[in-house]
């Protein structure tokens, strides 16, 4: 038995598939089922992390051919640095979430059978791992479909609610439109690959193919369309905020945290690896879509008051940030600036793993809140920090990370993206030089808006008083859920304060695809200082920021507590009116009001106030009702015409069906005649 990474990765996939197979055997005893299957899933995920880490560290490419698939079309498997990196991303979050799931899924006890959840959970992770490992179009698409189908059933898990069924259907439709586009893209690429018919579908053959520019462009845009549909890039995002919240929270964490990343993997694989030579305007389109997704995603998120929906919209934003990094890298490499391209690519990859960890943590936190209160609507929450201190602290860590605040991880990747933006004057194209820095301003805008959104999310959920009408018995979640969250939180901090170690590790991907590394300069001054291009250009030390703030805080605290005591607890000061109640607090809707007013033109907003007049005087209304609806304009502009026209088409086609046997016989007769005429 040899322990090379690809064997370990494949064994983990087999372990996950095996767990899915044996899970139904334990149907009788729910606790055994949950304990065994999620522990096996976490072991498999951990092994995947180890295999991926090793593959990136050694940068050895290992391949294998599996004796499954169709006759003559076996599955090809390949583990290189890029695949290894994404294995780590998928495995790391799956590991945290699997441990978290032990406690979370037990919450369904007494409500429903969880066997299907366990089975599809394992298949889902196995599908994602196979997507990353695949080295031919056939295997890739089979794995892609396995992932999509498994996640469809997971979204459908709570299928008694009509909106969940609707969300799952929408998800399935968009996923398949995307899959068709990817299939076409691979078709084009395989068509030009050399070799006989039966080996043209491997990525290796596609890499060596000489593709004319216009066909390469068609292939790129088809695959980009397909991957964007999976990643939820605006305007293909509409399914995402419906489907992700509908799934159980542990699955939402995986869908938002890592399933979207398989699309990022696909974009990098097809663009940098398979096509590998491309004109600059491809990159500018990726960059533009990334910027639009980033800003619109965070603005949509601000308008939400459903905690999980808010988080789902933030995935749109963060995918945008990742695409910005990749788009910049594509522009730089097409102008032969490998060092800057490496910076952009590393920024994108760094944000990929960061987003996986903190978004997973945020969904785990939201799941813990849902588990404890049964609520997803933030307007009904408040003050949970007292009842759920662990969840609150970990959710806060994730909020700080996603808002790009130092010393946590989200900041480092956004900072690297800023540096890549600032190096754009090196480009030879004058229009790009003028326009690209505006993208940096949009990145700053989305970062600041994200901070506003997470002040809202954390403040309304965990701070203040309970806003709901009925008060459920709220409790802290059990230790497995806490353990999953704490591990993710610690990872957020570590990735934030030790960026040079991470960059040294991941740099080999940049070396393979753009032919340059930034680790030489990035950690030139030791592991504490991150200097992406040169020391003079910019430097950042997360660990000194972290320790510095801690030291000053501790010193100030110690100095001010030389004399003990001096704290008195009292009631809230209410200006002497004694009428203050929890309905007077700001809630999610009122918090976002100023921003809604400024950016309202981007949405379809209906707002109205109704007063039920009091008998005495109209100045003292008995009851005031406020209606607000915020709708997505893109739905009306893009999707509604498509939906309407497809309904119209199917109605027209429906006229063929009359229910009379004579008509159908006539159709058969005409068909036979037509065939005889045309296919003589």
């Amino acid at each position, binding site marked *: 038995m040899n322990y090379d990474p690809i064997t370990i990765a494949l064994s983990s996939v087999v372990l996950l598939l095996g767990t899915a197979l044996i899970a139904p055997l334990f149907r009788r005893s729910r606790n055994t089922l949950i304990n065994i299957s999620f522990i096996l899933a976490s072991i498999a995920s951990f092994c995947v992390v180890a295999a991926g880490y090793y593959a990136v560290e050694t940068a050895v490419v290992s391949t294998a051919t599996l004796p499954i698939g169709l006759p003559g079309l076996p599955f090809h498997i390949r583990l290189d640095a890029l695949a290894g990196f994404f294995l780590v991303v998928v495995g790391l979050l799956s590991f945290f979430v699997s441990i978290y799931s032990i406690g979370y899924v037990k919450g369904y006890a007494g409500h429903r059978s969880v066997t299907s959840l366990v089975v599809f959970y394992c298949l889902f992770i196995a599908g994602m791992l196979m997507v990353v490992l695949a080295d031919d179009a056939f295997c890739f698409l089979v794995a892609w479909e396995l992932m999509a189908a498994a996640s469809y059933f997971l979204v459908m898990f709570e299928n008694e609610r009509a909106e969940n069924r609707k969300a799952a259907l929408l998800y399935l439709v968009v996923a398949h439109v995307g899959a068709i586009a990817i299939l076409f893209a691979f078709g084009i690429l395989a068509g030009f690959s050399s070799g006989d018919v039966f080996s043209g579908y491997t990525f290796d053959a596609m890499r060596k193919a000489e593709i004319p520019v216009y066909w390469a462009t068609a292939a790129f845009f088809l695959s980009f369309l397909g991957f964007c549909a999976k990643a939820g890039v605006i305007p293909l995002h509409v399914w995402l905020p419906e489907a992700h919240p509908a799934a159980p929270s542990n699955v939402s964490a995986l869908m938002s945290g890592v399933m979207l990343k398989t699309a990022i993997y696909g974009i990098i694989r097809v663009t940098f690896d398979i096509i590998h030579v491309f004109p600059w305007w491809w990159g500018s389109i990726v960059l533009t879509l990334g910027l639009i997704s980033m800003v619109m995603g965070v603005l949509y998120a601000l308008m939400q008051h459903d905690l999980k929906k808010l988080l789902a919209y933030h995935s749109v934003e963060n995918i945008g940030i990742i695409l910005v990094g990749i788009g910049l890298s594509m522009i730089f490499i097409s102008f032969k600036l490998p060092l800057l391209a490496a910076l952009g690519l590393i920024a994108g990859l760094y944000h990929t793993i960061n987003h996986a960890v903190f978004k997973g943590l945020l969904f785990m936190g939201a799941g813990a809140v849902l588990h404890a209160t049964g609520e997803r609507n933030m307007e009904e929450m408040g003050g949970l*920090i*007292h009842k759920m201190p662990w969840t609150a602290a970990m959710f*806060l860590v994730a909020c700080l990370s996603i*808002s*790009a*605040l*130092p010393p946590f991880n989200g*900041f480092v990747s956004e900072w690297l993206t*800023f540096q890549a933006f*600032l190096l754009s004057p090196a480009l030879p194209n004058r229009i790009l030089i003028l326009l690209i*820095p505006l993208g*940096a*301003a949009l990145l*700053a*805008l989305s*970062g*600041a808006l994200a*901070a*506003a959104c997470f*002040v809202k999310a954390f*403040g*309304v959920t965990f*701070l*203040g*008083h309970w806003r709901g009408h009925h008060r459920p018995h709220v409790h802290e979640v059990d230790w497995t859920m806490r353990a999953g969250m704490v591990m993710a939180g610690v990872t957020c901090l570590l990735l934030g304060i030790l960026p040079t170690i991470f960059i040294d590790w991941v740099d080999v991907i940049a070396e393979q695809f753009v032919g340059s590394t930034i680790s030489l300069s990035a950690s030139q*001054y030791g592991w504490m*200082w991150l200097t992406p291009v040169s020391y*003079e*250009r*910019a*430097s*950042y*030390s997360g660990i000194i*920021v972290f320790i*510095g*703030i*801690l030291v*000053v*805080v501790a010193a*100030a605290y110690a100095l*001010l507590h030389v004399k003990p005591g*001096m*704290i*008195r*607890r*009292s*009631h*809230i*000061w*209410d200006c002497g009116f004694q009428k*203050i109640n*929890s309905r007077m*607090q*700001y809630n999610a809707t*009122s*918090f976002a*009001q*100023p921003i809604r*007013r*400024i950016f309202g033109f981007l949405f379809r907003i209906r707002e109205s106030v109704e007063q039920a007049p009091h008998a005495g005087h109209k100045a003292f209304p008995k009851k005031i009702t406020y209606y607000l609806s915020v709708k997505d304009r893109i739905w009306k502009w893009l999707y509604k015409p498509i939906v309407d026209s497809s309904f119209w088409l199917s109605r027209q086609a429906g006229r063929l069906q009359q229910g009379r046997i004579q008509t159908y016989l006539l159709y058969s007769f005409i068909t036979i005649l037509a065939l005889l005429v045309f296919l003589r």
Partner: protein
Amino acid sequence: MSMDSFIIEALQVLLVIGLAPAFAGWVRTLKCWFQGRSTPGLFQPYRDLFKLFSKEVVLAYNASWIFRFTPYLLFGTAVLAGGIIPILSIDLPLAATADVIVLISLFAIARFFLALSGMDIGTAFGGMGSSREMMIASLAEPAMLMAIFTVSLVNKSTSLAEIVQVIYSGQLILRPSITFALIAFILIILAETGRIPVDNPATHLELTMIHEAMILEYSGRHLALIEWTSMMKLYLFVCLCIAAFAPWGIAVKGSLAALPAAFGFMVAKLGVAGLIIVLIETGLAKMRLFRVPEYLGVAFLLATLGMLSFFILD
């Protein structure tokens, strides 16, 4: 790094902590003169702080640890920023810790926690202040970064010490890009530090307040730390502006001999900066809240113009 630079570092941090109230006092004194009032003197802020530190802390029953942690965190970020911005010398051991982007994010993390503690007690005022503060911040931040980017594109670095070094080694040219960026930056400083025309630091218990609304529930040493931090924030933003646009007089070599001159220059420049702030504050009235986006839009536009004129003219 010589021993001297560590001493200068320590001195500079102590000066930020110690001089910030005096600078706030200077601004208030000037304002009183301009408005024809008699002044409580340059040292009134010190007396206010001392009074607050000796008072007991009254906390609401439902105040969480975030509410108690925030004042210390605010103070911590401000002190750290005071060690990073080149105020007396550019040869600072901490200067490489953070470039301008990190520095702005340090202020952002303080604001994040302040906004959270505004929502912690669960009063209407607190939430209102937090909501408005985050709205203004989210518009001010892109404008501020645009202004900073212009400066860093001109000087080919985002590290402040390096920017100062480049400005020093070059000749004094009046670049249009830098001028636009400077005007934008001054507008942003007023918004970020809560001065007129965006917010009025002298109001208390008014429906228009922003910063004061968030800290309404604070008392005792917590309030003292927050007040002190906001004085330091004004001081630091002015120093940041000086370092990025007019660093002349700062000690280039980290030697103690150059320190008195650098200190003199710093005091003179701060005096002038206080005068400019007061001129703007007395000349303008506070804006309606929904005028503020237009104001910040102007700042953003100016910064963008600065950047475009750098690419076109320079």
